[in-house]
């Protein structure tokens, strides 16, 4: 199905002038979306963008009608985009107003604005349809986006817009980072939070409107949401996240447009979103900082530690072990036999665990100040946590056999 040479051509910008321009636009857009989206995610307002993008539809419809009224073609892209931007702003203002002025929470406000603006947009589309002017060709593509039938000057308009958005994002990213990362600090250092928030929303709107024609209003939010969520798995630092997210967005735009240009019936918008979604799934599963597998590995390792220690201490005290997980861990590590009697290594390890436990106990008695911290390190070998000098001190007090010492 996939034509390899066409794909390589598209990847290397050799698939025709329009495709190259669109690809550049999509990369810039992806980068801008990922970057702006990071701030949106950090301010916990990701889905505001959904309301915003759906709210563009009535604007597009009205712009079309107005332009047709004045005898234009109605399909004039910049005109449609200006209409989209204006009604998106109205939608955004409605969301803000509903959340600030009424008891409604943001989710309800977003959903209400999204659906009623979209409904209005649909009404206007049907008006345009029944007026029989200029088909919906120009407008239908705003729903799902399309790059295939794009005119050259449309492609250039979009690329220029994307460049402009990317530039704005680049200039404002420091200020946004500051506000998202530490609101109080930002306030005390003289940054106007409300103004920055407004700025953020303007950037979101710019990304949305620019992406409208390529990705479509239903999916354009994906450009703002998926890359930052994916990036979140790789890092805990805002700055790194901004970079990773922008990268994920740009890569999605690039591969997505290339795929779309080389495979028949592969609409660019949805494909870009799917590429981003694949990157998200990969990050969710495999990222080292917060990925699922690594997190699973860490919490399992910790849980083993707990069971091992508790099991060994029970062996030493000659108590029966009932907890099934504990038995599994001890068996797996060869500390007990199938009949639950301790092995030789088990007894040695138990002796050692008791010694550790006893040393920790002495340490805590002597250093109540450290108790709080130390309580959390208790499962680690004492040698990893204390200096040899400290341990030697403890060993001095530790004279009798391990079992005789107070074990908690």
């Amino acid at each position: 199905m996939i034509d390899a040479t066409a794909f390589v051509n598209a990847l290397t910008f050799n698939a025709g002038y329009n495709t190259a321009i669109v690809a550049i636009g999509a990369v810039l857009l992806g980068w801008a979306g990922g970057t702006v989206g990071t701030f949106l995610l950090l301010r916990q307002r990701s889905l505001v963008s959904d309301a915003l993008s759906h709210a563009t539809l009535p604007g597009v419809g009205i712009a079309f009608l107005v332009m047709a009224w004045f005898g234009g073609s109605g399909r004039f892209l910049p005109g449609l985009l200006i209409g989209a931007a204006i009604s998106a702003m109205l939608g955004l203002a409605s969301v803000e107003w509903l959340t600030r002025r009424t008891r409604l929470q943001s989710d309800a406000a977003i959903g209400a604005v999204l659906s009623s603006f979209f409904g209005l947009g649909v009404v206007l589309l049907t008006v345009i349809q029944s007026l029989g002017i200029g088909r919906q060709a120009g407008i239908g593509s705003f729903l799902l986006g399309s790059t295939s039938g794009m005119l050259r000057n449309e492609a250039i308009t979009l690329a220029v817009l994307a460049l402009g958005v990317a530039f704005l994002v680049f200039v404002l990213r420091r200020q946004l980072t500051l506000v998202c990362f530490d609101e109080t600090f930002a306030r005390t250092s003289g940054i106007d939070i409300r103004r920055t928030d407004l700025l953020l929303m303007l950037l979101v709107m710019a990304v949305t409107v620019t992406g409208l024609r390529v990705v479509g209003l239903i999916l354009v939010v994906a450009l703002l949401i998926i890359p930052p969520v994916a990036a979140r798995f790789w890092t805990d630092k805002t700055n790194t996240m901004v970079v990773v997210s922008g990268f994920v967005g740009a890569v999605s735009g690039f591969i997505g447009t290339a795929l779309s240009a080389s495979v028949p019936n592969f609409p660019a918008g949805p494909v870009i979103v799917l590429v981003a979604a694949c990157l998200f799934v990969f990050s969710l599963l495999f990222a080292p900082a917060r990925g699922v597998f690594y997190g699973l590995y860490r919490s399992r390792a910790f849980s083993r530690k707990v069971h091992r220690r508790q099991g060994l201490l029970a062996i030493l005290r000659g108590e029966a072990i009932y907890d099934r997980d504990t038995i599994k861990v001890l068996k797996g590590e060869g500390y007990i036999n199938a009949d639950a009697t301790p092995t030789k290594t088990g007894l040695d390890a138990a002796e050692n665990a008791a010694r550790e436990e006893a040393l920790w106990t002495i340490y805590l008695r002597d250093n109540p100040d450290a108790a709080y911290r130390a309580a959390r390190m208790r499962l680690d070998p004492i040698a990893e946590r204390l200096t040899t000098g400290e341990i030697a001190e403890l060993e001095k007090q530790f004279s009798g056999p391990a079992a005789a010492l107070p074990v908690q």
Partner: protein
Amino acid sequence: MDGLYIGLVLVPTLIGVLAAVSCALLGNFLVLRKQSLMGDAVSHVVLPGIVVAFIFTGSMSVGPMLLGAAAAALLSALLIELVRNLGKVEPGAAMGVVFTALFALGVVLLEQSDTRDVHFDVEHALYGNLESLVWLAGMDASSMFEPEALADLPPQLGRLALALVAVIAFLVFFWRQLVVSTFDPVFAHAAGVPVRFVGAALISLVAVVAVTAFEAVGAIITIAMLICPAAAARLMTNRLLPQILWSVFFALVSAVVGFWAAGSGMELIGSGFSVSAAGMIAAVSGAILGLCAVAAPQRKGALGH
């Protein structure tokens, strides 16, 4: 009563009302649980469900389509939970990721398959076609009692009525669990309320209603009706039961006024065409919410914002 009126106006209006009321009833709990956008997510995901069902069965018959859509809706709810819990992603963002990805998948599959030959497109999925659900056999009031004529009623009417009954039954039987687990999940859990089950049942029912309604009236009405009437009702009162009654009333008004405005209303202002009824109903519900936000007695809420 004028036969044409019954067949061409009353029946589609009734279908709109049934869809709107079912959604509004469930919407109350979605809004209170801050899960309003679940309806949005679930409705978007209906598209890939239908496309996959088509690819598997090769037919556009209703059964597989509804099944596919319901499966996709449930799958998306599950995926959202999964992304939220596994990835510790905030709920809004998790929703955004899942529904855009699935919707994109649906569009790509649609483009790749040849569903277009059997006339199915995204636009249809979004706005439905309420105006076409007419009852041509219903020539006069007496046909309401004639079996053959009744058999010709749009099947969507029966399905939506069934969905509404299911919703009401769910609310009646699970009322206490629903209220307790919505208000204070931790307490509910400690008191032995099956919190997860109730939540899952609510979302499943939203999915079922979304799918049934979508088939009749398109996704947009579903989303609007799941949120707007309940949100507006929230601004009217501080008690739950009155809130639910208000939401039903608002849903009713939106459906009736919306349908009227899209057809006869347009004629009234002298334009020679009618516009999308689904879109109009959604817009009217938004307007009602707008009015309530300006003037409803409890718009500020207890916390004063």
